[in-house]
């Protein structure tokens, strides 16, 4: 049952072994995302070089969906041009909001498909993406 559901192996793997998770380094640009309603609290850090995301990390706490989504995000965005990353964030936002259908924004986030069906989990999924988007957009402005 769990295979088709929210908790696919891929998601659980990202939760158990989150990629690019750990304390942020000095000099990183940082942005926090927090949802006091469920206690999710995450900070995203990036190093941009020539409008490309050279490095991206996050730390914090949250439910499996929140942590796995942040982990997937770092994999999907590392090395990407900053404006593509912004587009990706927006695409993820709308893909999640629509709950079903639409094209998967990035192969690395496909495992979030089970979670986006549940409106109550949208904030969990999007917490890190919104933080990244704020960070990159503020920086571009």
């Amino acid at each position: 049952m769990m295979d088709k559901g929210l908790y696919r192996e891929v998601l659980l793997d990202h939760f158990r072994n989150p990629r690019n998770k750990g304390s942020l380094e000095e000099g990183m640009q940082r942005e926090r995302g927090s949802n006091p309603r469920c206690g999710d609290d995450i900070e995203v850090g990036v190093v941009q070089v020539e409008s490309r995301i050279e490095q991206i990390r996050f730390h914090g706490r949250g439910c499996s969906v929140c942590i796995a989504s942040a982990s997937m995000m770092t994999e999907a965005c590392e090395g990407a041009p900053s404006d593509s990353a912004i587009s990706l964030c927006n695409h993820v936002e709308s893909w999640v909001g629509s709950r079903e259908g639409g094209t998967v924004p990035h192969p690395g986030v496909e495992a979030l498909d089970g979670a986006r069906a549940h409106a109550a989990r949208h904030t969990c999924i999007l917490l890190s993406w919104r933080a990244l988007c704020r960070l990159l957009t503020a920086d571009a402005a």
Partner: protein
Amino acid sequence: MVESLASPWRHDFPQLLENPQLHYLDSAATALKPSAVVEASRRVLSEDYGPIHRGLYPAAERATDAYEAARSTLHRFLGGREDDCLVFTRSATESLNLLAEGWLQSVLVPGDEVWVTTLEHHANYLPWKRVCERVGATLRVVPLNTDQTIDATQFDDLHPRVKLVAITAVSNVLGVALPVSEIAARAHAVGALVVVDAAQAIGHQRIDLATWGCDAVVASAHKMSGPTGIGVLLARRSVLECTEPLLVGGGMVDLATAEQPVWAALPSKLEAGSPNLVGAVAMAAAADYLSDAGIDRVESHVAALTHSASEALAQLRGVSVLALDAPERDHGIVSFNLDGVHPHDVGQIAGELGVAVRAGHHCCQPLMQALGVDATVRASFALYNDDTDVDALVSAVENVIDVFGVR
């Protein structure tokens, strides 16, 4: 000797009959409805509907009578005294805000105090906090003691500057009951009024304002298997006499054209707008249903289920049940956490397995802070639950333990 945990009332609840695989353990959020309530609501909407107050034709007179009969039924159900008055509101939340804005605001002076406890719901915390801040009074939050409860001795230092003690009858997170009468006695000794939040208790234990000796009690219909969108404030007439209306408009004014409008007599003064006939009738039907079931029988059934669930959960690997060693704890609610797993994940997986539990702060952030957690998983029981629900809960949590490899 094993007590039977079968529910003699389960078959009264159509949603459970239709969904035999549903294990509804979220009654502390809102309770399912028995046919009697559904039917009462259908009848008043489609057969006995009419406007209330001053109608001069039969349908209006019947509607007015039905509305006032509902008021009496609930007055009795909550143990109201003769000098109490029952006001229909939209919810326990509105009832508390009405007392805060309409009454407390006008009696508090800077330096006064209002006491609440750490385990109050936001609805029994924020309204008082807002008024205290506006007035320059102090809101004191009585801390949890070591067994995660509140006891009456924590009110030994009440003093005459305290104008109000607002406490819940039962915690909607821990399921512990407060010693309401003892606290009320101490409060009255220093001249403070006592408001009891019965929102959580009302579905499964006797609410008795008179025996408690309190000054006001609030509750919502939806937590006692009644409709949504209606609640009550039952309070001493003397308190309500000096309560300013939160809402002004039709029905609550005798003379609107005067420089200083003349409010109507109680309870109309505090019920601006067209009364909620359908809600009142259906809420009274819920009270009648619970009375017929026997509120004491309901209470022991729910306590047995709660006890059984807590004991079983506490055995599981990585599970910590909150307030496990507290006395007076089996009031329909078990909150727990699972090592390394966020309550959302527990709730979601349980949900996928047909077990409806809640995960979150349960509108009790001060309590979460005191417990040092962000959230808990909460399973809550009502008269329609039985041992199959307890078993399903336990096996759902076992499943989560598996999925997340809790050690």
